[in-house]
């Protein structure tokens, strides 16, 4: 009996220490730690937009959304079930401010076995790459990942939680979110892989 309570105490202490450590390291529950390459990219970028919202913060933000406004009501419905939102947008003054290896590192950092690639596009000479992945658990969409690399712009979007494209479609005026409806999000792995060559020809 005594031994069991000691073990319980120890487990509690370990859990507490773990959560304290996670908080001190800047990790938001439900979201992965920022990739190591992020700081380097941010230091080179002329304009950085960073949004990291955990489940609690999303729920808090949801309280301040006007349910009567159509847009906000749709946004509220969309974010209510989400576990986290992680968005980074880096804008660069010049081209070649980041390497393809860094983009690959970013992609690999977020890509795990649960993610299903939906779009994978590589431009051989322009260096533009696009990755769209969906996290599918038991046939349900539980996450969306977008990595878009353009010569002067790098965008990372990670949305965790149940995502219903029809809900996103309702937010048509928020930066054309309806575009997600246009994407083939059929969870029966339908990968669109394009390797575009600017000089012509595609594979």
């Amino acid at each position: 009996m005594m031994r069991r309570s000691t073990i319980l105490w120890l487990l509690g202490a370990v859990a507490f220490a773990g959560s304290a450590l996670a908080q001190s390291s800047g990790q938001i529950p439900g979201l992965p730690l920022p990739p190591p390459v992020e700081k380097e990219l941010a230091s080179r970028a002329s304009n950085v937009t960073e949004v990291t919202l955990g489940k609690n913060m999303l729920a808090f933000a949801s309280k301040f959304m006007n349910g009567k406004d159509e847009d906000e009501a749709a946004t509220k419905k969309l974010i209510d079930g989400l576990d986290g939102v992680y968005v980074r947008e880096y804008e660069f003054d010049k081209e070649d401010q980041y390497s393809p290896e860094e983009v690959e590192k970013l992609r690999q950092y977020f890509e795990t076995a649960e993610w299903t690639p939906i779009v994978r596009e590589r431009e051989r000479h322009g260096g533009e790459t696009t990755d769209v992945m969906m996290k599918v658990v038991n046939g349900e969409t539980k996450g969306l990942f977008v990595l878009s690399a353009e010569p002067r712009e790098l965008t990372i979007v990670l949305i965790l939680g149940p995502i219903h494209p029809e809900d996103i479609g309702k937010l048509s005026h928020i930066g054309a979110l309806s575009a997600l409806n246009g994407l083939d999000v059929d969870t029966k792995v339908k990968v669109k892989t394009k390797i575009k060559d600017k000089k012509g020809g595609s594979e």
Partner: protein
Amino acid sequence: MEFESKDEMELNGEFEKELRQALERRPAPPRLKRRVLEEAARRRALGRRTQVLWWQRIAAAVVLAAMAGGGVLWRQADERRKGELARQQVMTALRITGRALHEVNARLTARERGE
């Protein structure tokens, strides 16, 4: 009444004597007036002190209530500010997401048309 006994007459005389002594005008004890005035002043001061104490208590209660009310209002305002900030962040995140997806769609559409 005319036939009062000797004992009764003595008793009456004794009583009258005592009564006379009791009603006899005697000078007040020394410093009595001062003591009475001092006591009256002490009671007045005590009354004033009690009154001041009550006012102080009321003032302290008002200040505490104002502080508590101010704290609640500040907390509400702070929460509103943070909530608005969080809401704006959500909208920014969705805007960036939307733009990224739109670009992906545009690229794919362009590719399909080009093919």
